[in-house]
C-alpha cells in the first residue's frame, strides 16, 4: 500500500464524519434520480406495450355523455357512424355485472373476487393476455377472457376450464333474480394497469354481451349506450373523422390523444430527472470543493508535516483527491443502491395502486445509463470540485505551516 493510500484510508472516517450531511444529501439525490428514471422507464415500457398490443392509435372514443354531446348512441347511430368515409367499424361499449358463481372457482374460498365486469372485446383495444390465446375470428358466444388478478388471488388456474358466471336478471321493474351462464375460459388478461374497463374486467364476444344485456332486462326498448369506439382506416384520418363526429353532436376523444397525454407525463418526469442530474452535478462540484477545502484547512499543519518529511506536491494533491474520490465513490454506491431499491419499490407501489394516469410495470429498474451517471459522474464531479483544494494543499509552505507550531 502506498503512503497516499495509507493516508486516504486513515483519514476516511474523520472525513466521513465531518461531511456526513452533505454526502447523505448527494446519495439521496442519486437515489431520487434513479428512482425517477426507474418509474419513467417502467412507464415508457408499459406505454410501449400499450401501443403495441392495443394498436389503438386509429380508434376514436365516442360518448353520448361527454362535454358537447347532444346525440344519443344507439344501434342506428352506430350504423350511421360506421358508414362514414374512412371508418372501418363502430362498436358499442358497455359492461355487464358478472360474478363467479361457484366459490370453488374463487382463488380464496373466503374472499369473494367481486364483480368481473363483462366488457366487449373491441378490435384494437384487446387486453394483453398473460395466458391463452384469442381466436383469430374473435371470441365465440360461450368464450370468456378473465382478469388475472382479483381480490383473493389469481384466476390463472381457470384457463381452459368452464366457469359459471352469475348475473342479475330483471323479472319486472325493480325486481331481479340471479341467472347463470356457462363460459369456457380461453384467456387470462393482464389487469395490472386498470383502464376504462375498471380493475377487474372480463371480456366477452359482442353476441354474448348483447344476450346478457337483453336478458338482464336493462333494455326495454332499443339498446342505448354511453360509449362506443369508432375504428378509422389509419391514424392520419383520425382528426378529420373526429371533427366530423363532433359536428354530428357526439363527444369525441381519440385514444391516441390519451396516449399522447400519458407520453407528456413521462416526458415531464424525464425532464425532472435530467434537471435533477444537472442539480446533482453542480451540487457534487460544490461538495467536492467544500470537502477538499475543509480537508486542507483542517489539515494544514499535517500537510506541512507531510511536506517536511518528503511528500511531493503531487502526492499531497493526490492525498486530497484520494480522500475526496473515496468519499464520492462511497456516496455514489450508497446512492445507486438506494436508487435501485427505490425504483423497484416505487414502481411496484405505483403499479399496485393501478393509477390510470401513471401506468407502470412493477419491479422497474433504472436504465444502465442512469446507473452509470450515478455511479461515475457523481464521484467525478466531486473530485473535479476538489481541484482547487488539491492545488492549494500542494502549495502549502512547510516552513509556514510548521512555524505555527514552534
Amino acid at each position: 500500500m502506498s503512503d497516499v493510500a495509507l493516508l486516504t484510508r486513515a483519514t476516511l472516517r474523520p472525513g466521513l464524519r465531518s461531511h456526513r450531511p452533505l454526502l447523505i444529501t448527494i446519495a439521496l439525490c442519486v437515489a431520487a434520480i434513479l428512482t425517477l428514471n426507474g418509474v419513467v422507464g417502467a412507464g415508457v415500457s408499459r406505454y410501449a406495450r400499450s401501443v403495441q398490443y392495443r394498436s389503438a392509435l386509429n380508434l376514436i372514443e365516442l360518448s353520448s355523455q361527454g362535454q358537447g354531446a347532444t346525440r344519443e348512441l344507439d344501434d342506428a347511430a352506430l350504423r350511421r357512424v360506421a358508414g362514414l368515409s374512412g371508418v372501418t367499424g363502430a362498436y358499442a361499449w358497455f359492461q355487464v355485472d358478472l360474478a363467479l358463481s361457484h366459490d370453488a372457482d374463487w382463488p380464496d374460498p373466503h374472499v369473494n373476487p367481486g364483480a368481473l365486469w363483462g366488457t366487449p372485446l373491441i378490435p384494437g383495444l384487446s387486453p394483453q393476455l398473460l395466458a391463452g390465446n384469442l381466436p383469430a375470428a374473435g371470441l365465440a358466444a360461450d368464450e370468456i377472457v378473465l382478469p388475472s388478478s382479483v381480490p383473493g388471488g389469481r384466476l390463472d388456474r381457470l384457463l381452459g376450464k368452464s366457469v359459471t358466471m352469475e348475473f342479475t336478471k330483471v323479472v319486472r321493474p325493480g325486481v331481479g333474480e340471479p341467472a347463470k351462464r356457462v363460459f369456457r375460459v380461453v384467456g387470462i388478461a393482464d389487469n395490472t394497469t386498470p383502464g376504462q374497463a375498471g380493475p377487474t374486467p372480463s371480456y366477452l364476444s359482442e353476441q354474448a354481451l348483447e344476450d346478457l344485456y337483453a336478458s338482464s332486462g336493462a333494455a326495454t326498448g332499443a339498446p342505448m349506450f354511453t360509449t362506443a369506439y369508432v375504428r378509422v382506416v389509419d391514424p392520419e384520418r383520425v382528426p378529420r373523422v373526429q371533427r366530423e363526429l363532433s359536428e354530428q353532436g357526439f363527444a369525441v376523444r381519440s385514444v391516441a390523444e390519451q396516449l399522447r397525454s400519458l407520453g407528456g407525463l413521462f416526458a415531464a418526469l424525464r425532464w425532472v430527472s435530467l434537471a435533477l442530474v444537472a442539480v446533482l452535478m453542480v451540487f457534487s462540484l460544490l461538495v467536492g470543493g467544500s470537502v477538499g477545502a475543509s480537508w486542507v484547512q483542517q489539515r494544514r499543519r499535517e500537510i506541512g508535516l507531510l511536506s517536511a518529511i518528503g511528500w511531493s506536491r503531487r502526492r499531497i494533491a493526490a492525498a486530497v483527491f484520494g480522500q475526496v474520490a473515496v468519499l464520492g465513490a462511497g456516496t455514489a454506491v450508497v446512492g445507486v443502491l438506494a436508487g435501485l431499491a427505490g425504483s423497484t419499490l416505487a414502481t411496484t407501489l405505483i403499479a399496485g395502486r393501478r393509477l390510470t394516469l401513471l401506468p407502470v410495470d412493477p419491479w422497474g429498474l433504472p436504465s444502465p445509463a442512469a446507473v452509470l451517471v450515478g455511479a461515475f459522474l457523481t464521484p467525478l464531479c466531486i473530485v473535479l470540485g476538489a481541484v482547487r483544494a488539491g492545488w492549494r494543499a500542494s502549495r502549502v509552505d512547510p516552513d509556514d505551516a510548521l512555524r505555527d507550531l514552534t
Partner: protein
Amino acid sequence: MTATTRLSQPVQVSLSLRGVTKSYLSRGRRTRVLDAVSLEVAPGEVVWLRGPSGSGKSSLLRIAGLLSTPDSGMVVVDGLPATTMRGAAARRDGVGMVFQNGNLLPDLSVRDNVAIAARRPVWGVVDRLLADFGLEEVAARLGKEVSGGQAQRAALCRAMLNDPRLVLADEPTAGLDPANRTVVLDELSRARRPDRAIVIASHDDEVVRVADRVLTIDRGRLV
C-alpha cells in the same frame, strides 16, 4: 563535476552552512533571524545547538532540513548543494527531521505515522524500527492517543525510516517528563552512526550527555 555530484568523495561534511542569512517579514517589519551563520557538521558527529527562545535555532534547522531557503549563503547537505536538490525527494531520502512534540498525524496509527515517511513502506522494516524503539505495544494506537514521550519516540522512528545521513531534531525533549527526556535522548544517541550526523536544537541542558560538540546561537549568530 556536475552541479549534482557530491563536492567531495567520501563525504567529509554532512552539513555545511556558509554565510547563511534569513529574515522574516512580521507585522510589516523585516526581522533577521539568522545573520551570516557558518557551520559544518561531520558524519558521525552529534551537535547540540543551544540558545534561548527566538535565537534562531529552529530557523537554522529548517534551512538545514531544506524546508526553507536562506536569503543568502550556501547550504550543502550530504555533499550536495541545496540549490541543486529537489526539495521533497531530498527531504525524504537525505534528511530525517524530528519536530517538537512529535507531530504525529492524529488520525493515523503510530505504525502508519512511521510508514508514511516512505513512498512504499516495507512493513517489516517499519515493525523492526518500532520494536527497536520499544513501540510495538502502541503501534496500533492513533497518533492522538499516545503520550508525549511515545509520540516523540515514534517521530524519531519516522525520521530514521529512510536511513538518513542527516538527522535534525528540533526541541525533541520539550514538554517531556525527565524519564521520557532520558529515553528520547538515549534513542537519539543510539541513532548515531559513523556516516550519520545529528543536530539537536534544544535548550535542555541534558542534551550535553549525548552531544560531541556544542554550538551556541544568540540573536541569529553563532557565538
